[in-house]
């Protein structure tokens, strides 16, 4: 990258800079005209110069000028106007000039702003482009937050400076020079004095400001480090708290802030010292004029008129000069910042742009073998983690790598995956070095998956298809306003040196997934999700989500129809006790008392809490049903039990997660409440206390909590009271309960709750697994499976995929690799977060998935379980970074050495 900002700006904005200079020069004409005009208005029509006689007129706007040899040339002889008309005409001209000046200013500022923003866009893009081409080693060293700060904040002032980069010095320099020349004309010696002082200012001040620049650079570095540290604290908060090192971090941050403070304070000191000196020098010139000029005048060597003119002209000198020096300061400041940033991004060897060039067509299959030739890879410290390894993976061949952690197999796989670069030796496909081939070939024909997963924020489906988004494959047809906007986008992108790739285009390379278009891609997605055993997880995510039945009306009604099918199915399989269905006429033993009473779900929790406390409706219904007192006694019983169980536990104890009745802070509250209420009948208890006790009942589920409190009689009463809640609900509470209706989709409940329309029993430990399997089966047979799965693919995985578990992320990553048709698959222990049994199963699944198709790709797998190696054609065993054994499986099976290694 260009290291000097001014040259960078000149290279990219030369034409625009010249244009704006021209416009600025033009704008001077009306500007100076408007200076002269007020004097003419006052002297002419107002004070009456030239209108001495009543009725006398003046010529308005005669245009004539003198030309040598021709004499006077008159273009426009002007109009004769009276005094008042002249006043009006001149005022109008003044207004016109004001408008013209304003428009010039508006145009110039907008133009300069746009120029700056374009350059900013160009710099930022160039920096991100460089990040995309950084060599792997460098990426390990930099902190992401620091890079982000540089791209986001540190280059920002450069945009602001761009517009002024050349216009400002030209303009101000011109003004200062004019003033100086005027002084020189008036009096040579006084002019020389002024010039000397100006020279001193121009020499000393920037020199002094150099120290400021050094400090500025330090400020920038420390601030950048601070942002790196802050992001480290946020990322590592678990480790910090876990090791009780928060105070160490506090000390570190305080020390950094102290350093930043010192630097900033130093900057202030210098800044104002320089300012003081600058002002002093500016003021010392008039002093010299008065004293020396005055002396000359007294001596008679200088005429007083000249002296006054010089002093008058000098007024115009310090202003532009000061601004010029300020401009220079700004220039050096952004230059330092720019140089800093450029230094950070000038990394060698950067991946050549040609390697990452866009390629729309399908990549040709790789024909030769993938091989490491005398390959050595070193770690950050320079220690070799693999040494002189030569290993060839022929097309269609399957190779297992064993040797465990530190053996070197992982490092080899990383080198094949281009995550690390060789220290010596080469990695070749056929005869070509893998690093010389464009990524459009190696990035598509070689697929790599390891246990280090990066999941981008977005939907699960986006992440799954991420590996197919190589190039924009369709031309989007825009019409009307959108077309205009697209044209504008393209033009601006070009002017700022950005690529014009269309993000709205369909980037998914269906052919690369073996599909012909969006319609049959889904089958592929399903297949790979099945291979990595992720389908159930996604289905579970899908069925736990809520959908808007108004938007998905057809789906919602199909779900409602499924309820009957589920019942018939459970009956057929004699599993009816797995789910207790909601029946309007009977108590659901697996649901809470609250659910049974309301026979519905609460749509607005916060509002409900208020209603419970203040609305009389609730109490009336309970009383009428004969439940008021029963619930009160039951609540007391629950409170006693809970207080007994949880009294001794610290408030943040994880057991409180299992406590549904109250929060940990409420335990002491209920403890005192119990002491107050024990042995007192309900009619002697305040309304508020009674509610507090009664509400405990709502969360109670007999089979789960097992306090033995629910009797048949109570259940009957509760069921009877249901109707009151559905029919007798007062108008002001309408909509607060969404009632269970066997033939309606409940918007506030999840898909699975809508399917089940009941509660899974607590007794079967695998009850929910079985139900899930049955529901899945039903989805399949009713043709709803794909729709549900699609809801699951819409699941937002969160920043860095944090809403998924580590094993789900690794499965997703493997699926992302498998969905691409490649010639070589490199798996570097991709499933470390999973238990051994599942790992083995998925490994076998992947094998049969990849082997099932005719293309028969090569597989290189770094195994964590050597027992699986009999799936492969060959086993390469690594120890201490060396390849110690490379045998085909048939021969090695009888080999006792191998048995020892594999066991």
């Amino acid at each position, binding site marked *: 990258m260009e290291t000097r900002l001014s040259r960078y700006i000149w290279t990219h904005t030369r034409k625009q800079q010249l244009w704006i200079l021209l416009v600025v020069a033009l704008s001077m004409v009306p500007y100076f005209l408007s200076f002269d005009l007020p004097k003419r208005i006052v002297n002419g029509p107002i004070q009456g110069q030239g209108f001495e006689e009543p009725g006398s007129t003046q010529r308005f706007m005669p245009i004539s000028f003198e030309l040598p040899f021709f004499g006077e040339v008159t273009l426009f002889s002007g109009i004769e106007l009276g005094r008042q008309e002249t006043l009006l005409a001149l005022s109008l001209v003044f207004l016109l000039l004001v408008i013209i000046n304003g428009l010039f200013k508006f145009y110039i500022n907008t133009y300069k702003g746009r120029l700056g923003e374009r350059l900013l866009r160009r710099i930022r893009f160039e920096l991100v482009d460089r990040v995309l081409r950084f060599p792997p080693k460098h990426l390990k060293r930099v902190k992401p937050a620091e890079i982000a700060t540089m791209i986001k904040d540190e280059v920002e002032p450069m945009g602001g400076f761009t517009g002024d980069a050349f216009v400002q010095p030209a303009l101000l320099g011109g003004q200062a020079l004019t003033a100086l020349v005027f002084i020189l004309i008036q009096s040579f010696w006084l002019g020389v004095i002024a010039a000397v002082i100006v020279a001193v200012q121009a020499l000393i001040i920037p020199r002094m400001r150099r120290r400021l620049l050094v400090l500025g650079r330090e400020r920038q570095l420390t601030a950048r480090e601070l942002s790196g540290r802050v992001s480290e604290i946020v990322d590592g908060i678990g480790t910090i708290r876990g090791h009780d090192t928060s105070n160490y971090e506090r000390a570190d941050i305080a020390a950094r802030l102290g350093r930043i403070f010192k630097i900033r304070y130093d900057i202030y000191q210098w800044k104002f010292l320089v300012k003081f000196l600058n002002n002093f020098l500016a003021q010392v010139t008039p002093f010299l004029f008065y004293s020396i000029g005055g002396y000359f005048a007294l001596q008679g060597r200088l005429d007083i008129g000249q002296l006054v003119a010089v002093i008058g002209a000098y007024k115009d000198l310090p202003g532009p000069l000061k601004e010029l020096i300020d401009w220079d300061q700004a220039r050096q400041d952004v230059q330092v910042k720019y140089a800093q940033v450029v230094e950070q991004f000038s990394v060698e060897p950067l991946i050549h742009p040609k390697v990452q060039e866009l390629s729309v067509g399908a990549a040709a299959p790789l024909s030769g073998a993938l091989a490491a030739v005398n390959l050595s890879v070193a770690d950050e410290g320079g220690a070799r983690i693999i040494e002189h390894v030569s290993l060839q993976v022929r097309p269609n061949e399957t190779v297992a790598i064993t040797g465990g952690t530190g053996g070197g197999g992982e490092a080899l796989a990383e080198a094949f995956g281009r995550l690390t670069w060789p220290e010596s030796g080469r990695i070749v496909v056929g005869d070509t070095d893998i690093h010389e081939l464009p990524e459009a070939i190696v990035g598509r024909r070689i697929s790599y998956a390891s246990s280090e997963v990066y999941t981008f924020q977005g939907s699960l489906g986006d992440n799954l298809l991420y590996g197919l988004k190589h190039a924009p494959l369709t031309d989007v047809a825009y019409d009307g306003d959108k077309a205009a906007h697209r044209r504008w986008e393209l033009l601006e992108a070009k002017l700022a040196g950005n690529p014009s790739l269309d993000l709205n285009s369909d980037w998914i390379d269906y052919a690369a997934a073996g599909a012909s278009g969006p319609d049959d891609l889904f089958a592929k997605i399903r297949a790979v999700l099945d291979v990595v055993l992720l389908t159930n997880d996604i289905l579970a995510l899908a069925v736990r989500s809520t959908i808007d039945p108004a938007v998905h009306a057809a789906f919602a009604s199909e779900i409602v129809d499924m309820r009957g099918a589920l019942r018939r199915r459970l009956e057929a399989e004699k599993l009816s006790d797995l789910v207790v269905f909601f029946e309007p006429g009977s108590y659901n033993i697996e649901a809470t008392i609250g659910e049974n009473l309301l026979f519905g779900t609460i749509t607005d929790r916060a509002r409900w809490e208020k209603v419970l406390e203040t609305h009389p409706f609730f109490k009336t219904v309970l009383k009428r049903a004969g439940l008021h007192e029963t619930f009160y006694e039951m609540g007391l019983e629950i409170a006693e*039990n809970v207080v*007994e*169980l*949880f009294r*001794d*536990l*610290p408030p943040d*104890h*994880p*057991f409180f997660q*299992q406590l549904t009745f109250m929060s940990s802070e409420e335990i002491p509250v209920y403890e005192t409440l119990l002491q107050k209420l024990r042995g007192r009948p309900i009619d002697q208890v305040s309304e508020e206390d009674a509610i507090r006790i009664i509400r405990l009942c709502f969360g109670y589920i007999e*089979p789960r*909590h*097992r*306090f*033995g409190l629910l009797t048949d009689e109570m259940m009957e009463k509760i069921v009877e009271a249901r109707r009151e809640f559905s029919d007798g609900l007062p108008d002001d509470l309408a909509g607060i309960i969404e009632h269970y209706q066997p033939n309606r989709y409940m918007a506030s409940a999840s898909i699975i709750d809508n399917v089940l329309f009941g509660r899974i029993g*607590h*007794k*079967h*430990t*695998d009850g929910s697994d079985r139900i899930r399997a049955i529901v899945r089966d039903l989805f399949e047979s009713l043709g709803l499976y794909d729709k549900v799965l699609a809801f699951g693919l819409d699941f937002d995985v969160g920043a860095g995929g944090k809403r998924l578990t580590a094993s789900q992320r690794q499965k997703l990553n493997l699926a992302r690799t498998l969905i691409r048709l490649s010639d070589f698959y490199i798996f570097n222990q991709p499933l470390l977060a999973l*238990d*051994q*049994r599942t790992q083995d199963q998925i490994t076998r699944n992947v094998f049969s998935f990849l082997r099932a198709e005719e293309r028969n790709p090569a597989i290189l797998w770094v195994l964590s379980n050597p027992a699986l190696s009999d799936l492969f054609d060959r086993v390469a065993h690594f120890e201490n970074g060396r390849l110690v054994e490379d045998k085909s499986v048939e021969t090695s099976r009888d080999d006792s050495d191998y048995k020892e290694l594999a066991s």
Partner: protein
Amino acid sequence: MLLKDEVEMLRRIPLFSGLPPAKLKLLAFTSDRVMFSAGENLFHQGDIGDAAYVILSGKADVLVSTPGGQLKVAEVEENSIVGEIAILCNTPRTATLTTTAPLEALRIRKDDFLKLLADFPEMAVEIMRVLADRLSQTTSELTEARSRAQRVEA
């Protein structure tokens, strides 16, 4: 069966018999009551242990997979605890447990169990005592087996 019955049941298990009733009640409350029909697996050999089971009623076989197929090594019935080793020392399950009759059990999750031990050292001491008992028993059995083996060799 109510919470208090489960507490009674837990008290009959040597591992828990020395604990105060209030703690047993908490243990029971935080555990799940689960049912298995005959022929179901409580857990598989090789899985990561996430819970121990106190058998309230019913029977199950302890099976170990060998190259020659599943081998039954023991049988468990009510009032016994299974799977506690895996949740104490983080090893994979050493055997598969398959029910032979409908079985009702209390499922004690690993995290809850360990948390209880951390909160109530007296419980940890009690567990240690029981485990040490078992160890000395195993050791004496091993010694016996070894001397028997030596006799056979000689």
